[in-house]
């Protein structure tokens, strides 16, 4: 493993977004992973529509909550074409699903993987290197008050409630940490990111990990 790695340095991570008062973190993390997968496949880095996932992913509850696994399953099985954020912008509330003709351009994923990496965070880091940014579900209750630094305490595994995207890690100092992109705007945390200690499955970061294939 390299000492430090961040997919942002490869210019395949879009800007941090703000879910506002919409409980759509599950959609934000899945769409962010799709954006990075698309950029890694050689297409331009572009914000894709979170609202499309919120409105159309039928197994979920839009701004009232959802599951990253259900959303990935829907995207993959239905070969949904995600359109750009400009075409289907975020409204921070549930809406009627808008359909586009088959000829309309959009990005679809080829598949996804979903694993539990608890006690295997080194393996998780290897998968991050090969598969791109990882969707994870964490216990983020104490993140309400987070300003910066490395989160090492005050959260637990087995209490997952918030979906985010791991874009990299830093092992140059002590303790090593995961670089985690959140969807609460860039004024939250470290420019919209959190740093979570690597090892020990802090906040359950390794319990529910998904990667998108293109």
């Amino acid at each position, binding site marked *: 493993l390299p000492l430090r790695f961040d997919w942002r340095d490869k210019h395949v991570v879009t800007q941090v977004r703000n*879910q506002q*008062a919409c*409980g*759509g*973190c*599950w959609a934000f*993390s899945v769409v962010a992973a799709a954006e990075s997968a698309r950029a890694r496949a050689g297409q331009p880095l572009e914000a894709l529509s979170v609202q499309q996932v919120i409105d159309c992913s039928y197994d979920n*509850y839009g*701004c*009232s*909550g*959802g*599951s*990253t*696994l*259900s959303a990935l399953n829907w995207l993959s099985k239905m070969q949904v074409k995600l359109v750009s954020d400009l075409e289907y912008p975020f409204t921070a509330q549930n809406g009627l699903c808008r359909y586009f003709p088959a000829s309309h351009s959009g990005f679809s994923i080829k598949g996804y993987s*979903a*694993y*539990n*990496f608890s006690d*295997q965070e080194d*393996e*998780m880091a290897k*998968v991050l290197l090969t598969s791109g940014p990882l969707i994870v*579900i964490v216990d*983020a*209750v*104490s993140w*309400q*008050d*987070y*300003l*910066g*630094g*490395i*989160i*090492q*305490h*005050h959260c637990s595994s087995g209490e*997952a*409630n*918030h*979906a985010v995207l791991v874009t990299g890690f830093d092992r140059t*100092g*002590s*303790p090593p*940490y995961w670089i985690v992109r959140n969807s*609460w*705007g860039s*004024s*939250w945390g470290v420019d919209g990111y959190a*740093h979570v200690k690597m090892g020990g499955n802090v906040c359950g970061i390794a*319990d*529910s*990990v998904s990667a998108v294939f293109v």
Partner: protein
Amino acid sequence: QTATPTPPRGRHPPAAFRESLNRHRYLNSLFPRENSTAVYGINQFSYLFPEEFKAIYLRSRASRFPRYPADVQKAIPNVS
């Protein structure tokens, strides 16, 4: 380090803010000597009670994921 955010228009729940300040004091007091430990303080969510924060922002449903099948490393027998 950050400017104090103003409460959302039409809402001024001082009790939630007071509770946040107490919580920050508690969270920051527990591991003060640890390397690069996280810092907790006033941000855009300080005007919410934890229950409100959880109800609005923490809406991801968790599922049970299968364990990652890492390659098992086997010892190489003695060979010339």
